[in-house]
């Protein structure tokens, strides 16, 4: 509808500026992380640093076992949480999408009701603490993130609209039980939505810092996000704890190192971004169109 070449040119110009505004803040994070510590102390964080240096990264590589272990915890939790979450969500969604099963409307309602009302942070905190998740990796996996009503409903409606119930009938005539139908038919046919929800769940696990804040007190159990959060509160304490060598806190390049750790934390997301954004876009748009 905007056909005019000048209009197109102006519009592209504005959108280009918006795109730059979206990306530029993250660029500052990256440039800060490769700026020489002395230049940072003298001139502050800057897009055009005087001297570049990979000092912060070599420092991380040499000194901080804890950053590696935090990274390991994040990877482990993301894999376990996404895997368990996706399996149990898919099974529930499948069971709810089969027509004519008594009781499914009540269960659907109970699933849905969790979107409307919640007990709040305190009861959840008391309960998960008393279940003994504190300072274990389960503190990252189980509370809040494993699955939610929204995902269940989204996957169920995908199954219900894309996999005709008649397939189940004929499979049953051939002697296949529901477990086999689920494993050999539903999972492959539902792949697009499962990948999308899996990526969303995985991103939530990767980015989660709240469970670390609530349930982790031991420094060696911090995930990468929880570690970043701790460093925010007290960078000196965390870095002197993490450093293997006994170098004094003053010699640590802490102005650049915090940015380097933050950048390392988003690196996998950036690396996977072209792939991620395709599925996210279709997930967000699909959810919206269906309502």
């Amino acid at each position, binding site marked *: 509808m905007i056909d005019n070449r000048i209009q*197109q040119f102006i519009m592209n110009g504005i959108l280009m500026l918006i795109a730059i505004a979206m990306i530029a803040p993250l660029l500052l994070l990256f440039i800060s992380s490769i700026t020489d510590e002395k230049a940072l102390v003298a001139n502050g964080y800057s897009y055009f640093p005087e001297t570049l240096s990979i000092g912060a990264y070599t420092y991380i590589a040499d000194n901080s076992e804890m950053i590696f272990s935090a990274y390991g915890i994040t990877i482990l939790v993301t894999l376990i949480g996404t895997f368990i979450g996706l399996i149990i969500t898919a099974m529930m969604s499948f069971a709810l999408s089969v027509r004519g099963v008594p009781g499914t409307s009540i269960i659907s309602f109970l699933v849905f009701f969790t979107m409307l009302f919640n007990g709040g942070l305190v009861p959840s905190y008391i309960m998960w603490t008393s279940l003994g998740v504190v300072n274990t990796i389960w503190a990252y996996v189980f509370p809040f993130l494993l699955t939610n009503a929204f995902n269940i409903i989204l996957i169920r409606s995908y199954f219900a609209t894309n996999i005709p119930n008649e397939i189940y009938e004929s499979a049953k005539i051939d002697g296949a039980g529901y477990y086999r139908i689920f494993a050999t038919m539903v999972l492959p046919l539902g792949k697009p939505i499962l990948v999308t929800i899996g990526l969303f769940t995985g991103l939530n696990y990767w980015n989660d810092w709240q469970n670390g804040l609530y349930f982790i007190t031991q420094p060696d159990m911090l995930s990468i996000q929880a570690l970043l959060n701790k460093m925010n509160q007290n960078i000196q304490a965390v870095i002197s704890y993490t450093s293997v060598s006994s170098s004094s806190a003053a010699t640590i390049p802490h102005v650049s190192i915090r940015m380097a750790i933050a950048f390392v934390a988003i690196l996998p997301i950036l690396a996977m971004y072209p792939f991620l954004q395709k599925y996210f876009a279709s997930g967000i748009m699909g959810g919206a169109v269906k309502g």
Partner: protein
Amino acid sequence: MPLYVMMIPCALYLLINNYVPMAGIIAAFKSFKATEGLLGSPWVGWRNFEYLFKSNDMMIIIRNTMLYNVAFILVNNVIGIIIAIMITNVKSKRYQKFYQSSVLLPFTMSMVVISYVVFAFLSQQNGMLNNSIFQSNPIQWYNDPTWWPLILTLVQCWKYVGYGILIYIAGISVIDKSLYEAASIDGAGAWKQITRITLPSLMPAIITLFLLSIGRICYSDFGLFYLIPQNSGPLFNVTATIDTYVYSALMSPGGIGRSAATGLMQAVVGFVLVLGANGLVRRLSSRDAMF
């Protein structure tokens, strides 16, 4: 039968993660003692609530939560719609793709990392702003409440606007193209086409999103308000929300009752608002209602 078995893991999870804490709202009426557990702790009636309403904090956090939400709803939707209309009018598919993926990028970053990015701009000593634009009269960003309503709105918009843009792009993409063709044959310009075709067609989506966000008006993004201001005391009046209050009360000695009471009120008011908002959506366009 196998279908019920497949529901069990997920049902069990929702039971533990969502329903048990709903019963745990009794914490709001108890004086919680960790040694005696939730059930063993003594009842105190409404005392936790009375305590809350005697302090000034309650007014501040309710005001902040609601006003920020109103600002976020307005800013995100207005900017989201404008950018979505612009992107869908770009001729080049390659540019369209690029704009789409750049606006979604901040959405995939964790709030902790974003708090580092914001710190790189605002840090009193090393921040980019104090070392460039405000070099002559540096601003004590983390001690001066003046700018925070603007900063939080900007950060929030930067992180989440991409999500809204994609929803609106999806909404625009299903509008019948022949409407635009007919309009331009009749001599309607771009502006007329936007105001007479695009916006009216988006109206149901806009109203639905608007009402749903009204339903969540007493919830705030904990990470945004807790991490971005670095939990700085002098900023309390402009950055504290119900969710940051619930957390800090939970972590302060003897604050569990207060925290639970606040959380319960939030959940109850939220429940009523969601029901109300959904009722309105159903009246306006029943297709878009959640239930």
